[in-house]
């Protein structure tokens, strides 16, 4: 949070930015949206904003394939659009592989969001030796991300920031070791986890493992969803809350759920012109009364804050159009043109269009469960939400003894749920390690269990209010890419289905869908839904792509070579 102004060079142009900016924030602020080229010469830009989709790759100081959304700027840094084909590195002769460092903490927490941080605090306060691995530059996760480059624009510190700051203080005081910029490469036999951070490649052999890897956003593919300037609502929120940057001046927000309205209000307060919030669910009908009463009864604070937020949004002149959705986006000379209209279960009517700088999509989340699956934790398929849910006991322990899973990676429930589950899991972990948990945790765990039950009732009521058609491929046309990485279109997917390929694995080998850098995170559920719709297939645990190391692309030199120069 220094006031220092830095300069980076992007494709030969000087771009001024702030210390603490990510490359993505700096370039977005400068209006540079196109970050990499695809094999057919197309443009891609920031999409997920959290290191999942691999769309925002840039070349940094000559090194290709770096994530703009996860790379922090340095003064004089040279950034270039990422070529489709990476050049070989020259000059350095790598030394023989480094010795691997092993670490054997009592408790390893993967993920430094709300759930992981609470779990780490409770376990460490009980006297356990705790290490937290987090892939971002600073902990907090998506919910409690803290301002990192505040010099650009003063951002009002709200309650969410403040709660996050307090939690981070608590975990720091607890004695848990926080490792930022840590990428878990994979889980292997005997529960060994391989992770790399800025300093080393380490093998972790924890006695207990708490997985709190959160979620990532999903969007149904529609024409134009891969254009630079079209991004997830989470990416937009990270730009704003982390860096004081708006994704553009005129912004259209589309999707489903209360997060969209919240971010709309935040963007509007920051000076952006939010054209509309298109909400798939018909929320403003009389049918809202019953769920809202139920929400008020269970979580009065959250409910009144939400209602107040919607009122403020109206006062700010932002229209929330319920029962509406986005149908298409196209690139124009000056930006983007978005087409939208009334939503029904069949799709979205293209009724109106408007010129915008950015489109933010918030269609909900998918559990980030690849690490759990790689470990071999048993999952079941939830047919309604079309996702895998990890099986857990009352104390959040998975089918593997000593492996716990909490929060959104278990099937979504939001930050509050994650925090209650963190307390419950960490207490069980501490007890199983023979530690004294009588002081804080016992009281806390009783409270957590009560509050978790109440919060679940709140969530159920909330989502009955926001109930909307679930779109997978309904909004796509024949030439819409379903797999963003490999540019596999709906037509190609349908051709493979028509040819008789009846599993995701076969479709992958046939079309390359899911074979790219994001490992199918964007397309697997969408393609599986198409597949299940056209056949009698009932998806199960093994219907998805096998989870394989590396969890996310890992630079060879970083995995096995000499330390970064």
């Amino acid at each position, binding site marked *: 949070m220094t006031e220092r102004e830095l300069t980076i060079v992007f494709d030969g142009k000087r771009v001024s930015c702030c210390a603490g900016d990510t490359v993505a924030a700096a370039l977005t602020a400068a209006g540079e949206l196109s970050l990499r080229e695809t*094999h057919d010469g197309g443009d891609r830009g920031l999409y997920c904003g959290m290191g999942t989709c691999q769309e925002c790759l840039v070349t940094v100081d000559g*090194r*290709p*394939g770096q994530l703009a959304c996860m790379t922090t700027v340095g003064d004089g840094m040279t950034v270039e659009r990422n070529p*489709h*084909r*990476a*050049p*070989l*590195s*020259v000059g*350095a*002769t*790598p030394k*023989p*592989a480094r010795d*691997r460092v092993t670490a054997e903490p009592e408790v390893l927490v993967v993920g430094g969001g709300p759930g992981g941080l609470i779990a780490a605090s409770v376990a460490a306060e009980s006297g356990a030796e705790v290490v937290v691995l987090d892939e971002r530059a600073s902990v907090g996760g998506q919910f409690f991300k803290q301002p990192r480059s505040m010099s650009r624009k003063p951002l009002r510190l709200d309650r969410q920031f403040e709660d996050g700051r307090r939690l981070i203080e608590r975990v720091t005081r607890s004695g848990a070791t926080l490792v930022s910029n840590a990428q878990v*490469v*994979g889980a*292997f*036999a005997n529960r*060994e986890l*391989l992770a790399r951070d800025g300093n080393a490649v380490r*093998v972790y052999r924890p006695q207990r493992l708490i997985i709190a890897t959160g979620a990532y956003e999903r969007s149904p593919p529609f024409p134009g969803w891969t254009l630079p300037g079209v991004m997830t609502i989470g990416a937009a929120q990270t730009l704003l809350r982390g860096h004081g940057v708006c994704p553009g001046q005129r912004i259209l927000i589309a999707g489903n759920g209360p997060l969209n309205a919240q971010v709309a209000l935040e963007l509007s307060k920051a000076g952006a012109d939010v054209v509309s919030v298109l909400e798939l669910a018909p929320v403003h009908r009389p049918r809202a009364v019953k769920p809202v009463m139920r929400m008020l009864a269970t979580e009065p604070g959250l409910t009144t804050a939400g209602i107040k937020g919607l009122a403020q949004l109206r006062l700010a002149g932002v229209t929330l159009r319920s029962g509406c959705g986005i149908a298409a986006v196209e690139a124009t000379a000056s930006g983007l043109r978005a087409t939208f209209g009334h939503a029904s279960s069949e799709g979205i009517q293209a009724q109106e269009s408007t010129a915008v700088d950015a489109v933010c999509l918030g269609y909900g989340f998918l559990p980030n469960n690849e690490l759990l699956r790689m470990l*071999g934790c048993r999952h079941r398929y939830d047919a309604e939400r079309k996702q895998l849910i990890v099986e857990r006991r009352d104390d959040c322990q998975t089918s593997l003894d000593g492996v716990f899973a909490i929060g959104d990676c278990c099937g979504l429930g939001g930050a509050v749920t994650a925090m209650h589950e963190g307390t419950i899991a960490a207490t069980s972990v501490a007890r199983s390690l023979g530690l004294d948990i009588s002081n804080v945790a016992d009281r806390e765990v009783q409270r957590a269990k009560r509050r978790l039950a109440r919060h679940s009732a709140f969530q159920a009521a909330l989502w009955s209010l926001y109930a909307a058609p679930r779109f997978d491929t309904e909004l796509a046309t024949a030439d819409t890419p379903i797999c963003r990485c490999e540019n596999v279109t709906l037509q190609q997917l349908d051709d493979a289905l028509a*040819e008789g390929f*009846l*599993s995701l694995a*076969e479709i992958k*080998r*046939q079309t*390359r869908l899911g*074979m*790219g*850098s994001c*490992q199918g995170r964007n397309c697997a559920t969408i393609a599986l839904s198409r597949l299940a719709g056209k056949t009698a297939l009932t998806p199960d*645990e*093994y219907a998805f792509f*096998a989870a*394989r*190391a*590396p969890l996310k*692309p*890992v*630079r*060879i*030199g970083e*995995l*096995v*070579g000499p330390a970064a120069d």
Partner: protein
Amino acid sequence: MAVGTDRVNTDFDTVVVGGGIIGLCASWFLAEEGVAVLCIDDGRDAGSVANAGSLHVQMQSRMDRLFPQRVADYEKTLSIYPRAVDYWLEIGQRLEQDIEISIGGGLMIAEDQDQVKRLAEKCRRERKHGVETELIEKTELLRMAPYLTRDVCGAVYCANEGKVNPLLANSAIRRAVIEYGGTILTGSRVNDIDQSRDGFVVASDAGRFRTRRVMIAAGVGTGSLVAGLGIRLPTTAEPLHMNITNFAVPFMKHLLQHAESALTMKQLNNGQLVIGGGWPAQPARESGAPGILLDSLIGNISLAQHVVPGISDLHIIRSWAGINTMLDLVSVLGEVEAIPGLYIAVPGDAGYTLGPYCARLVIDQMLGRAPDYPLSPFSVMRFA
């Protein structure tokens, strides 16, 4: 297709068990000649679908280590490898889809004088058995392959090694089977094969099929299938580790191997680098897919970066494991003498390279033609 267990389907003249590279090619060749063929595959323990598409000709370095007592017999059949690569080129011409075959030559590199000495000896033996390889010294090697580490001391070059894109090849051959009227049944396991009066009854998850001839090309599953017919064939599963990178500029046209360590590297037409070479993987778990071992991931990639230093800025985007079927290095091909009408086709080392040619040889024998290569060294009876 599915038939009740009480009724026996008699639609097929020949049943091919296994839908990997051999089974698909055999079904294609039979269908092409008007034979009513059914290819049945259970989709498990697959080798071909996980294959990385190296076209091997020269002896791989692990042979001496794995089967010292079998190397002499293996060497006698070395000349099948260049023919198998030629046959890939031939079928590549005949398929409608481009399967990205490229014969850029293969290099097996040495990093010390001891390895060079052993490569020289290997070269001598290969040439004696009809495989053209030559020893290349350091300066020439670095001219041919400037991407290699300066620590290299020499290499064996084999001009007819190369690669094929197995994703495209498997899919194109499958289409050819269907186009010529063959039938492919996937996701069904063959549980039992019984001899009957004038042929066989093949019992599968999808019902029973009475047929005149059976060809078993079921990779590692072959052993247990023929055991029921009183034939001994010890096929064992060897799960192997593979890695693939993001797209890189074209720089490596060779199929690269190491004289002593487990390493193969090649660059696909799309720019991705495939790194493997025989590092072990974990046997299949509940999911049916073999798992990845930490030491294999790190060991394989370390070795690759050591040999080709310029790849250090590429990213590994995925690793996977496939099942290699282990015999005793030498293929088992042809009709089983004691059981007329029963054919076995399990390739020896480098099964994907050998696949189409082995299928051709066995189909020729089946259809009463003299195979292009003598089948006598490949009898299953050596295991009796």
